[in-house]
């Protein structure tokens, strides 16, 4: 009986596993696989194997060529790009300047395009010759280039896009290293090696399979059980288990984003609280919080405390603005100076997640010593987003996944009147610095401007930056060649899976 059982199990387990297949566990299912419509982070992980971009970033966040071989600003609003020759799309069509113009125009004009806002500054595209395009902007914008390192820079096959219309996302055709094979919603996305890829020598894998598994415990069990070769977004609480497993490797990758507390300064019509009215009260609150202790207690010290919108790995990070230490005496003095009655009651809205609740409790206990009575309001995420947009909150704990260019982490959030400025913060000084940083191309000069801005923001505190999160990747010992890049995207170039 036992023999029969073992034989049955053996037969059931002996499913075919293709040679050099990389199975990646992702934390959510991707949305539409159309670079113009895509909205999710996991979608970007899939696109890295499917669709090449005009430009890419390397592990040091430097912009490097991909489908474009080079670029030049001929004047502050004109970007001339040279394109890579002998590149074909996965349907055999030729990649050229007309295809680039088609994709960029599609981003700007297609209904439901989520790229339109990213490249809104693009006025028009001219085809100079088959391998040269000229991008003309409405106004000078140094962050524009970095947009071309992500979905806005992905070029789709014009023939396929025209033929498929709105259905393109179900049968995407690009110029990336793997071509689309199948998708079973909520189960798997399968891509197979594209033989005519322009950089075929860098591709050792035959197949990439993406498997959405939302629960991190189940994701880890799948990795340990051999159903996955690699997975992303493990929790700091998983670090110990992964570290002890000799069959697994772990890589913690610093990111581009931040987690912070947004203070409502002028959003909504409700009564102004001391926190909303007086920057000194917000400063006192900030001084009462020890970022390093918070990260240690809630996240086992994995994440990096910051006091600016960009992480230390960013070329725009100003080392002269480190996270301030905790100073309860100074916080109490500031509250006295502001003339407010203590304890100052503060309502902190938090998304309903275990780590967020723990963060709230740590903040509650730290701020109490300085004279704050923090009330926690745990709210379902979408409801919290609505409340933050309409101003029905006092303080909101929320993060941002981050963009390569500092502008992507700041402009929309703290410039007067922007869509994500839920604080309704408005400062001419901050607006000027943000606008100047857009008009300058030199990275050193921009870093200085963002450094000055960080000081202004730490004084006015529309947002208190707490820490920059890391993404915890784990893979089996058979996986080699993974290069961690701060955008957390898994690039298949150079990766191998040992048999």
């Amino acid at each position, binding site marked *: 009986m036992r023999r029969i059982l073992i034989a049955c*199990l053996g*037969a*059931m*387990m*002996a*499913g*075919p596993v293709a040679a050099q297949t990389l199975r990646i566990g992702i934390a959510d*299912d*991707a*949305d*539409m696989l*159309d670079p113009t*419509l895509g*909205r*999710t982070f996991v979608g970007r992980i899939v696109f890295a194997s499917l669709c090449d971009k005009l430009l890419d970033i390397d592990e040091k966040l430097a912009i490097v060529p991909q489908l474009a071989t080079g670029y030049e600003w001929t004047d502050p609003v004109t970007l001339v790009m040279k394109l890579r020759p002998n590149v074909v799309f996965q349907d055999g069509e030729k990649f050229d300047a007309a295809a680039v113009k088609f994709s960029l125009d599609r981003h700007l004009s297609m*209904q*439901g*395009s*989520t790229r*339109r*806002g*990213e490249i809104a500054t693009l006025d028009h595209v001219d085809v100079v010759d088959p391998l040269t395009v000229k991008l003309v902007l409405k106004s000078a914008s140094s962050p524009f280039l970095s947009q071309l390192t992500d979905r806005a820079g992905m070029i789709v096959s014009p023939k396929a896009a025209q033929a498929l219309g*709105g*259905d393109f*996302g*179900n049968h995407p055709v690009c110029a990336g290293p793997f071509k689309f094979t199948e998708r*079973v*919603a*909520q*189960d*798997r996305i399968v891509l197979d090696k594209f033989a005519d890829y322009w950089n075929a020598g860098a591709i050792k894998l035959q197949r990439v399979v993406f*498997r*959405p*598994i*939302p*629960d991190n*415990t*189940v994701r880890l*069990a*799948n990795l*340990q*059980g*051999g*159903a996955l070769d690699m997975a992303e977004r493990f929790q700091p609480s998983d670090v110990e288990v992964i570290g002890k497993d000799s069959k697994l490797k772990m890589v913690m990758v610093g990111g581009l984003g931040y987690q912070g507390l947004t203070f409502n300064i002028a959003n909504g019509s409700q009564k102004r609280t001391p926190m909303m009215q007086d920057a000194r009260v917000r400063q006192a609150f900030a001084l009462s919080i020890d970022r390093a202790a918070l990260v240690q207690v809630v996240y086992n010290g994995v994440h990096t405390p910051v006091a600016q919108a960009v992480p230390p790995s960013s070329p725009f990070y100003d080392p002269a603005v480190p996270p301030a230490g905790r100073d309860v005496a100074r916080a109490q003095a500031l509250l006295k100076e502001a003339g407010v009655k203590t304890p100052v009651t503060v309502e902190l809205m938090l998304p309903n997640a275990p780590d967020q609740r723990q963060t709230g409790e740590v903040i509650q206990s730290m701020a109490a010593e300085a004279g704050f009575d923090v009330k926690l309001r745990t709210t*379902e*995420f*979408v*409801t*919290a*987003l*609505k409340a933050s*947009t309409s101003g029905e909150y006092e303080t909101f704990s929320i993060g*941002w*996944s981050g963009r390569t260019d500092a502008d992507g982490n700041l402009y*929309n959030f703290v410039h007067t009147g922007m*869509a*994500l400025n839920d604080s309704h913060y408005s400062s001419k000084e901050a607006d000027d610095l943000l606008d100047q940083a857009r008009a300058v191309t030199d990275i050193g000069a921009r870093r200085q401007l963002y450094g000055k801005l960080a000081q202004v923001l730490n004084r006015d505190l529309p947002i208190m930056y707490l820490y920059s999160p890391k993404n915890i990747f784990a893979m089996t010992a058979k996986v080699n060649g993974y290069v961690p890049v701060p955008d957390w995207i898994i690039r298949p170039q150079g990766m191998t899976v040992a048999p």
Partner: protein
Amino acid sequence: MKGSLGARFAQVIPTLLLVTILVFGLQQLMPGDPAMLLAGEERDPAVLAQIRTQLWLDRPLALQYLHWLGNVLHGDLGQSLRIGLPVSQLVLTKLPVTLQLGVMAFIFAVCIGVPTGVMSAVGRNGVWDHLANLVGLAGLSTPNFWLGIMLILLVSVKLGWLPPSGYVSLAEDWRQSLATTVMPAFVLGNAIAAILMRHTRSAMLTALDQDYVRTARAKGLRERVVVLRHALRNALVPVVTLGALELGTLLSGAVLTEQVFTIPGFGKLIVDAVFNRDYPVVQGVVLVTATVYVLLNLLADVLYVLINPRMRAA
């Protein structure tokens, strides 16, 4: 008879209409603005406005309902906002997965529950009875998701016997299909097995005390024949009714089990759609489920009338 059946058929239309109102009302009960989630992190005002127009969120509620109902009546359940596939296609591809899981779970439940119940009743107050009661109680009290994770850790991670998640259809590769569904089916069938065990035991205890069993024994029949042919056949009647009722529990239990084992079935479809505020999918799936229930109820009523002459007269 014709009159009563006709009345029953006539009730279906208003019932389904009420279902559509309830399904649509669900959208209003879900907190937050779906457009905000669907617009992505940037929440670009132009994209937000476009999504609201696409979803008819910028129109009065009654108009939204009528527009949706019109589409449904034309057989169009809409398109998933997240992945762009037609809802009807999603429903048709996910339903067989959950059905396979449900059937396997039911087989597990019957194969475990009925024999244990019989053994327990036959050896009343003995070791087997106490052991079966203990196991039954444990089966009833263990949450599906916990048992699922524990089994994954033991069977897949420690022993490496079965894949920890995923799904392969029977048509594609029957061995892999069984390998991926055997553990979730066991987890799903576990609680029902416990219920069936308890009911079989009590029905068997009653049957074993009956006169016809005593007569059978007096005739000198072997104990095995007495238990299986005489007692069990009679005891199974209420158990079969209960088993049929528990089929509904299987569908709701599949929601959690499919999440834990990452099986792309009906349960996972609806849970993911709710979290992603994918309204057309939520509405479509709930509507299809409710319609199936209403039609099955109608079928049951028709069968009652056909089987039971007294109801025919009524």
